[in-house]
């Protein structure tokens, strides 16, 4: 038992500090992906509700593809594809040597593309839930399309979309574990290293699972608080038992 504590401790002989730095990378990656994926998801949602059939088709194909592909496959395609593309461009520009694709950026793009596909569904649902009259009323008051969207639709949208987007966040948090396969030193990566060195797989993967679990529990508590806050102006929702 004592040796287990040593293995998990911070410092030279323990892996605690490595695991902690990995956990920070995991959180950083998830947080960096979130705004990118959600914004792209909103754009895809607007495409899917566009009046032009061609734009609607683009939106539908996008979601079908990125919701249907394994995240691991998307990650490989983005990582190797960008790598090859960048090297090609680098050579064409007349430079020599190799250009490396940073794993963090590749992970952010791949997870962001997937998050955009899933969150676009949530955004579409939320956009549909906002009565048309809200927008018409805003136009009648002389607001431009952009202003009406920002000042009238968006604040209501966030409240309706929050539970779905919260779900997307929980999935994203767990998906970040895949990034370890392209050697980004996240929680999963350091756990794997610790396992190789110490031959204590059950201890370390168990610890990693528990760390992810704690992140999930904190997230779900935070999301519940956020939902209560966004619902505070809505009488019948605030009182509803959850």
């Amino acid at each position, binding site marked *: 038992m004592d040796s287990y504590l040593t293995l998990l401790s911070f410092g030279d002989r323990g892996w605690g500090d490595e695991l902690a730095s990995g956990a920070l990378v995991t959180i950083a990656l998830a947080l960096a992906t979130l705004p990118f994926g959600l914004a792209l998801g909103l754009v895809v949602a607007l495409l899917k509700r566009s009046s032009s059939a061609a734009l609607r088709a683009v939106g539908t194909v996008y979601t079908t593809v990125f919701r*249907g*592909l394994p995240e691991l*496959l998307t990650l490989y395609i983005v990582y190797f594809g960008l790598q090859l593309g960048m090297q090609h461009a680098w050579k064409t520009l007349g430079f020599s040597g190799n250009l490396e694709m940073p794993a963090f950026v590749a992970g952010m793009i791949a997870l962001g593309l997937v998050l955009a596909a899933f969150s676009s569904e949530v955004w579409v649902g939320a956009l549909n839930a906002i009565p048309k009259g809200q927008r018409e009323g805003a136009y009648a008051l002389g607001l431009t399309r952009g202003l009406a969207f920002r000042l009238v639709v968006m604040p209501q949208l966030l409240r309706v979309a929050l539970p779905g987007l919260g779900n997307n966040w929980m999935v994203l948090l767990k998906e970040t574990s895949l990034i370890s396969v392209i050697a980004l030193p996240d929680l*999963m990566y350091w756990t794997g290293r610790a396992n190789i060195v110490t031959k204590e*797989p059950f201890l370390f*993967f168990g610890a990693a699972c528990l760390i992810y679990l704690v992140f999930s529990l904190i997230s779900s508590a935070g999301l519940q608080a956020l939902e209560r806050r966004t619902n505070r102006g809505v009488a019948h929702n605030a009182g509803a038992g959850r």
Partner: protein
Amino acid sequence: MTWCEVPGWLIGNEAIANYGCRMFGGLAVTLQLVAISVSLGAAMALLLALVRLYGGKVASTLVGGYTTFFRGTPLLCQLYLVYYGAGQFRPFLTDIGLWTLFRDAFFCAAFTFTLNTAAYQAEIFRGAIQSVGRGQWEAARALGLHWRGILRHIILPQAAMVALRPLGNELVIMVKSSAVASLVTIFDLMGTTRLAFARSFDLTVYLFAAVLYLCIVEVIRRTWDVAERRLTRHLQAG
């Protein structure tokens, strides 16, 4: 030329022609893995959902802890925990005669996926059973039905309708998630594709795998649409 070389030959890609047969073999492994874990998981989930709902306080809390753990941690981490972790318990597993099973990567993956999907499906079943109105229970009991009869003939058929759509989604998620099995030496579709890429450095093999995965997902989606129409045919007009 066998059929599995045809796609690569048709699009004139050497890597896909060379590794097409391996990749289709991998596809079969993926389908097996998913079919085994989702069906075993479903049986386990139904049990878990019933315990969660009617099993008393202690059992219900235990099931709640189980689902929270498996839904709150990444599948990859769970798979590593089982696959690498089992080796640490080798003497014990040998004693109870299970070591031959846990030595096998395919078994470890199927085992982990079953436990994982059971947790998700248990929540789906729980929600579906809860969505059936209380009056249905009361009316059935008033008619003198035994609780097992009530569940089988009254509650579960109605819950199945509600559960169908989320179960289809869970099946699609499992097809996609099963790709992590390739990280523990299993040559499923993802594993064979990784092998093909490592040997040919041709990115097209990944795109070919992408098309295959999209085909599976599309087939599931269409099948589910048909099944849903059939299960709800008594509710449709005309």
